[in-house]
């Protein structure tokens, strides 16, 4: 039996509603101080990503969002025991609190934009060919021919990326006053001009949708995909980074946790940190 996690919630109370998660198991709250993690139990560790599981994971988070502020957890984050989970929550407690406060009453929207890369590059090439080539390269040898071709490609590529930046700025202008934060991925493929996530207050959802309608109705070569509202996947920031120093704190934290649970303290050992001895695939 292992523990599958869905999201960090801003409540220590039991979850009233009956929510079913992966493998049909009930979702409940593992609380720590004034927050908690919504989890369910799995028979054994998960081996595969299946569409059913991923969609179920998402569904659980979205149901939780109707009642709580939720920090969605990445798919397939699993713990052996409740104690291990609590250790993690304790470690990230402040980060979780900060994110919950920042993301309360906010949702994420996704805007994806495609453009016809080949056509754009063709247009750029036409303009380039009309210009006088400032570098005089006589293509009289394989080396020089190679350079000439490469150079042309290089200039076109450069111009292409600059055009992308300009285009993205125009699109972003429709949304950046309505959204409080945004994450932008430029040219993930040459045709996928923009993959953006916007953090929008729940009260501004309609404004955001309207802005998209405006963008869509403006004539252009662009194709659009609008999705949302989503849980705020793209806007979680964890500032705490685990380091080897945490190993030495771990003993102390564990004993405290065990004491809280009414279990005997772990015996202290003097030994080299485990990570040096190649445990669990470590170096």
């Amino acid at each position, binding site marked *: 039996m292992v523990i599958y996690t869905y999201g960090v919630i801003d409540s220590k109370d039991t979850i009233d509603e009956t929510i079913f998660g992966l493998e049909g198991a009930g979702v409940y709250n593992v609380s720590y101080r004034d927050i908690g993690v919504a989890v369910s139990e799995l028979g054994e560790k998960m081996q595969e990503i299946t569409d059913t599981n*991923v969609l179920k994971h998402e569904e659980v988070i979205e149901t939780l969002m109707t009642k709580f502020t939720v920090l969605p957890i*990445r798919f397939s*984050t699993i713990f052996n025991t409740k104690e*291990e989970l609590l250790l993690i929550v304790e470690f990230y407690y402040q980060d979780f609190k900060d994110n919950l406060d920042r993301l309360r009453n906010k949702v994420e929207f996704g805007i994806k934009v495609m453009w016809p890369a080949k056509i754009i590059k063709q247009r750029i090439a036409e303009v380039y060919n009309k210009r006088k080539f400032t570098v005089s390269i006589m293509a009289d040898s394989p080396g020089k021919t190679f350079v000439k071709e490469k150079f042309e490609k290089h200039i076109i590529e450069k111009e292409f990326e600059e055009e992308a930046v300009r285009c993205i700025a125009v699109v972003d202008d429709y949304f950046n006053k309505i959204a409080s934060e945004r994450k932008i991925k430029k040219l993930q493929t040459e045709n996928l001009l923009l993959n953006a996530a916007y953090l929008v207050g729940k009260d501004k959802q309609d404004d955001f949708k309207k802005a998209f309608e405006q963008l869509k109705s403006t004539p252009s070569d662009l194709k659009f995909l609008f999705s949302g509202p989503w849980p705020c996947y793209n806007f979680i920031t964890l500032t705490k980074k*685990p380091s080897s120093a945490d*190993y030495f704190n771990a003993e102390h934290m564990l004993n405290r946790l065990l004491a809280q649970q009414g279990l005997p303290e772990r015996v202290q050992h003097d030994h080299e940190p485990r990570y040096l001895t190649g445990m669990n*695939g470590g170096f």
Partner: protein
Amino acid sequence: MDRQIKTLQDKNSYLDLQKEKRITLLEVLDRALDKGVVISGDIVISVADVDLIYLGLKVLLSSVETMERLRGSPFSGAAEEPT
């Protein structure tokens, strides 16, 4: 580093999914697989990439495993080998 994560249902049945379902799935995957609260549970380490920035966290969890062993829990015993 290659993802150890296995495939979705086989290609044919994926292609059978209507376009709307495929795009929903792709949108969900774009978020749920990589984003959100990204922390390592113990099992995730053994089946997925080992993110270097979480090496320290692995160390943290190693000591948890020791704790389990001392308590004689069913999870004690040889560490899982990463696949």
